[in-house]
């Protein structure tokens, strides 16, 4: 069941992405700047509000389908994760296959959330391929299920530690998408710099507390299993580096000369660190070598 849901999710993501690409192409070709990609807010116009709401223009049908398909993909992935949990008897967070599906879920769910909130579908042009890549990667390595080694047998901490990390990683994917659009030299059809900066910031605001919590919970777990809250294990250190980079971004936003482009560059760096931390399981060794890959 889990696999069927996963395949359905992949198809949804592919179709959603196709819709977004078509909608975006329509915007660029048709020159209707806000058609579809930037949905107008339903501006309730009581009083004489000085800021005019974005005028509502004809919404591209592809864009609407894209959004619906994205929701569908989130639904299928949620189902895949639930079936997986039932099948394995623990949170779907114990090896690289499960991490990848969960990461993709986080990226899609956070994207869907930010799309709803900011009505900017162009973010999907970046976020969806990332989610798709993670899903294909998961399918590529296969859904083999190994029982849990003793250190991982802490259902509560395993579930919470990784679930919290997934929210953080998902938010950082959105921040990355937004930063990449910010730095894009082609501006036609893309949201304004100001709006992209705001979206990046808001997604880091969501992700940062969760990353902090991930690290703290990791420390609690390390203390329980290995008797030391911090051992400079490579995965620990890499997540600290990620935390520091996003921390510097939060400070950079209020330092003159660091706003805008440089802050966006820090977000690219931050996402690189996120991926490095994430894939670190494969080559770090150390205490987090639970990838379930390459072990005899």
């Amino acid at each position, binding site marked *: 069941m889990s696999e069927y849901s996963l395949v359905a999710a992949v198809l949804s993501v592919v179709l959603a992405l196709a819709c977004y690409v078509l909608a975006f192409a329509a915007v660029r070709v048709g020159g209707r700047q806000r058609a579809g990609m930037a949905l107008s*807010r339903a501006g309730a116009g009581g009083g004489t509000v000085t800021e005019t709401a974005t005028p509502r223009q004809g919404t591209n049908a592809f864009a609407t389908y894209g959004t619906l398909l994205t929701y569908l993909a989130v639904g299928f992935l949620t189902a895949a994760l639930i079936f997986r949990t039932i099948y394995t008897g623990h949170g779907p967070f114990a090896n690289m296959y499960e991490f990848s599906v969960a990461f993709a879920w986080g990226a899609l769910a956070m994207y869907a959330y930010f799309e709803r909130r900011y009505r900017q579908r162009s973010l999907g042009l970046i976020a969806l391929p990332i989610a798709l890549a993670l899903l294909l990667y998961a399918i590529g390595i296969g859904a083999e299920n190994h029982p849990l080694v003793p250190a991982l047998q802490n259902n509560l901490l395993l579930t919470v530690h990784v679930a919290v990390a997934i929210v953080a990683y998902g938010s950082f994917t959105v921040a990355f998408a937004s930063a990449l659009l910010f730095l894009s030299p082609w501006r036609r059809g893309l949201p304004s710099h100001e*709006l992209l900066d705001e979206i990046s910031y808001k997604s880091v605001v969501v992700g940062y507390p969760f990353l902090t919590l991930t690290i703290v919970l990791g420390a*609690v777990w390390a203390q329980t299993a290995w008797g*030391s809250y911090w051992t400079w294990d490579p995965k620990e*250190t890499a997540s600290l580096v990620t935390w520091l980079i996003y921390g510097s971004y939060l400070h950079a936003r*209020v*330092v003159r000369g660091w706003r805008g482009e440089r802050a966006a560059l820090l977000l690219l760096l931050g996402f690189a660190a996120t991926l490095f931390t994430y894939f670190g399981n494969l080559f770090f060794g150390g205490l987090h070598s639970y990838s379930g890959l390459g072990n005899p």
Partner: protein
Amino acid sequence: MSQSVRTPTLRRAEPDLGDDLGSGLAISPTALGERLWRFFISMQTGLVLILALAVLGLIGTLLVQAPAGLSADQQAYSAWLDALRPKYGGWTGVFDALGFFSIFTSVWFKGIVVLLTTSILSCSVNRAPHLWKQAVHPRTRMSESFYERTPLGATIDAAGTAEEAASEVRVALAARGFRTMRGADAEAGTVGVYADKNRWGPFGTVIAHLSLVSILIGALVGGATGFRNENLAVAVGSTVDVGYGTGLAVNAKSFSDSYYTDGSPSDYSSELVLYRDGKQVAAQTIRVNEPLRYGGVSFYQSFFGAAAAMKVTDPQGKVVFQQGVPLVWSSNDGKRRVGQVDLTDQGLTAYVIGAASGEVDPEIRPGQMMIEVYRSASQGTPIASQIMTQAQPVTIAGLGFTFERERQFTGLIVASDPGAVFIWLGSALLVGGIALVFFFPHRRAWARIRPGTRGSIVQLGAVGRHDVTFESEFRRLVDEMAIALAEPPTA
């Protein structure tokens, strides 16, 4: 962090900076002190220091790090370094000289941590009075140009008088959870309103930053007063002193390791009994995620292996040693396991040697152990080396050595960290502080109501540019106010 841009200014002249908060640097008369203060309260400084720390962290992730304590042993360290040479080539020496192989104890790391801590403390001291003022004595009146320029602004025509409209505005704001107060006196005839919520939210930054100091204190206290022994091997049936002045001794009643059908481990557990001065004080079965904790000392399941139950008797037949000897070392070729017996009173050290598990040893057959006895003072050659068959004593240097039976040993990590309380306090404050500042942002709004040709005119303004959440809340607020203000109050 979520505050609007504010160029750091020297605050030493501020009267609201209490004497105790003012720090020596701030009231220092010297220009150097001023410059240092300016340096440390600058966000740019903090930013660069954070990035520098990230770079060090990256080095620590990418380069193999020397095991803790290895650098104390010159010989072992250079051997460890030599093993790395094929990997890093000519860079090995450079990296070593720069301290990159123990980056987290290097002078770079310590220096940056000290600078960053100073910066964090300075910023907190610098910002706290400002935040306090904003929360307790907010600016309640804004200029005309604020209402004209703010992106979150509205002008609403009200039916009632300015005073009536002001109270409607306050009711609408209060309904959305705002605290409202009358604005400072403006021009005659106009009424001002100030409203805010989550005014303590910005203190999350101070809490989060100071929590990092708490974590640092925890690390320092732990380093100074704690201990950690990662290699306490206890043979089943034996009792071993914990040491470190704890007065504790731990006995392993049993050890068991179990496996899944695919051969991967499923569980390791040890039944431990803890004694203090000969009296039992605790007993528990420990597992990988279930340590035994007693009086600030914790025992963790870490590793395991084979042990040999040994008995040593003196020429009179008196037992001088009877314990399980954990075979904790491995021979260089990995084919034999070695354990040590210290016979201090006899001036001897004996090594018990067995075949590693799965190895067929031509000398040491199943049911046998080899014993090598040395004079404790001399390293050189053993005074005797013999094979022992189970339960058959051999005599060396007048002592009878008996290999009684094979056993297992359980390997424990024993740790005590009095600094941990600061770590957990700091962690809780860190998460709480960050959540506070991000999820409870300070919202402020001002209103100015002046008499109009018909009724009065309400000007509303707020700060929160490109903040979609607040923008939509503000818009709803304006809608609600517009409805409430349209009706003349039924007096």
